[in-house]
């Protein structure tokens, strides 16, 4: 379960906070992120830390993929859904949509 990318250099919660700070600095530099105020910065850091924990949970739930920091790591799940998705999930066929014909799959 030890994430090979994160080397624990000090013990305990303080060490983890230090590591998350380090990750957040790399994240801001890589994705060109900047925040209008210290307050906003602190809020985004808190969201970022929560998303690091989510990434670790996703990694456990989805071990054949690689989960980690993406450009969306400073967004809450609802901000992410509201801003970067956009599907109106109405499973209803418009008038002109027909059912695709069944195709042969055995040859």
């Amino acid at each position, binding site marked *: 379960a030890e994430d090979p990318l994160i080397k624990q250099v000090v013990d305990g919660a303080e060490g983890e906070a230090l590591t998350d700070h380090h990750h957040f600095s790399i994240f801001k530099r890589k994705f060109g992120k900047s925040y209008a105020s210290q307050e906003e910065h602190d809020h985004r850091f808190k969201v970022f830390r929560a*998303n690091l924990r*989510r*990434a670790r949970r*996703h990694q456990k*739930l*989805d*071990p*054949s*993929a*690689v*989960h*980690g*920091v*993406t*450009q*969306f*790591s400073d*967004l809450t*799940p609802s901000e*992410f*859904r*509201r*801003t*970067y*998705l*956009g*599907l*109106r*999930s*109405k*499973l*209803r*066929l*418009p*008038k*002109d*949509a*027909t*059912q*695709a*014909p*069944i*195709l*042969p*799959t055995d040859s």
Partner: protein
Amino acid sequence: LPADFDWRDHGAVTGVKNQGSCGSCWSFSTTGALEGANFLATEKLVSLSEQQLVDCDHECDPEEPGSCDSGCNGGLMNSAFEYTLKAGGLMREEDYPYTGTDRGACKFDKSKIAASVANFSVVTLDEDQIAANLVKNGPLAIAINAVFMQTYVGGVSCPYICSRRLDHGVLLVGYGSAGYSAVRMKEKPYWIIKNSWGESWGDGGYYKICRGRNICGVDSMVSTVAAVQTSS
């Protein structure tokens, strides 16, 4: 059916695009499917305009008032195909570039249509049928639940549990036969999905998700479109 298939190898897929901070995934899924269908019809790969859909497509669900395509506030690929059918087609990306906002007026120019929809249909949930339609008709517009995509960096996603509530429109461009799944300690077949969050996200802008169990609803809403040849 071939064991592995990827429309990118056949030149039917444009480069990964970026929808930015706008809920317009549905328009990228729509243009991707029509770009592929138009390639099959004309052997020319033309990048089509999502902004035309964002600005001009307000097609509503005939049976559900208020459920309309609404620019950055969301839409549905099937409705977008319906709009494209009625409008006559989509313009080129370069003639109607993407801005990622939906405050502009519709600037659709009928004389500059680059691709038109002949018809579109919905593919059943059966994965073999989905694969057959993909191989025969080109990339498919699909919907998925994006919960794991916010933290996805690479590999083949095969989560134990994943909601099938669909919230994101993407493009199915191919499938592979052997993505290794550590937890299942065996090779698993997977779908290859083109996303619209730029090349720096995921696997070069793509998402791979394993086949077989309608994971994250990936098989639930699949549409195929046929294009007519237009000259512009």
